[in-house]
């Protein structure tokens, strides 16, 4: 584990999808959200856990669709609910997928809802990386 990760998850290993690898969040990032009162963003971490650890990953892409990010990853899931605060659960936003952006060393860089692509409802808009998992899909 990276020494400054304070929260970790076991996610599908993009380099060997039959196994898992450890990904995590830096304390500094989380503590900042706590101090600034960013309840909604913290609450979305519950969805991160669902996507990464509880079988919620529907797709895993390699690359962040811009230069020099080919070795980064995007985990994509479709939770049927959202957390708009740590205590308020709502239905998932319509037509959206939930994305978790991960750096090559496993550090989680961001997490967010994103509209589905108009061409392919299984694919988030603006994500054009290589599909790593599941196999046999395009």
């Amino acid at each position, binding site marked *: 584990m990276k020494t400054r990760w304070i929260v970790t998850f076991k996610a599908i290993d993009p380099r060997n999808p039959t196994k898992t690898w450890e990904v995590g969040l830096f304390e500094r990032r989380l503590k900042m959200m706590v101090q600034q009162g960013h*309840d909604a*963003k913290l609450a979305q971490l519950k969805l991160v856990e669902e996507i990464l650890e509880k079988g919620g990953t529907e797709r895993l892409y390699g690359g962040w669709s811009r230069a020099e990010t080919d070795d980064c990853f995007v985990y994509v899931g479709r939770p049927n609910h959202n957390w708009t605060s740590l205590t308020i659960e709502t239905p998932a936003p319509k037509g959206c997928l939930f994305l978790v952006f991960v750096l090559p060393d496993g550090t989680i860089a961001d997490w967010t809802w994103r509209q589905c692509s108009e061409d392919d409802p299984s694919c988030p808009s603006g994500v054009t990386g290589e599909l790593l998992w599941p196999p046999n899909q395009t």
Partner: protein
Amino acid sequence: MAAKSDLERFLRENQPAKKFVPYCFLDKQSDTLTAYFEGDADYSKRLSDHLTLYLSLETDEIVGCRVKGISGIIEDLPNFIRINHKGVELSIVFFAFTGGAEEESRKALKDLARVATEREMVLEPCSA
């Protein structure tokens, strides 16, 4: 009973402040600047390789953004502008990206700069 996960433990031990306060931060590892002006639950919309907006799920208004490929801009800023005692005014960072941006991104960057000015947001120097 199942063991508490790291996340459950962290959220239990770290109750967020009651009132949201706008903030921004640099992440050297991902070469990004993230800013949040409002604390609404949000979704994201990618406008370009360099700019992703965070929009309120309730109102579709811009509540924040993520600017990518930020390191060159930040390193060059001290050569062109005076930095106040706290750090770089965030609006300047947004203006720095408007030059080569497409119309939609340019409009968004101007909106972001305006909001950052209204909120008096400053990008403070910090380590990764």
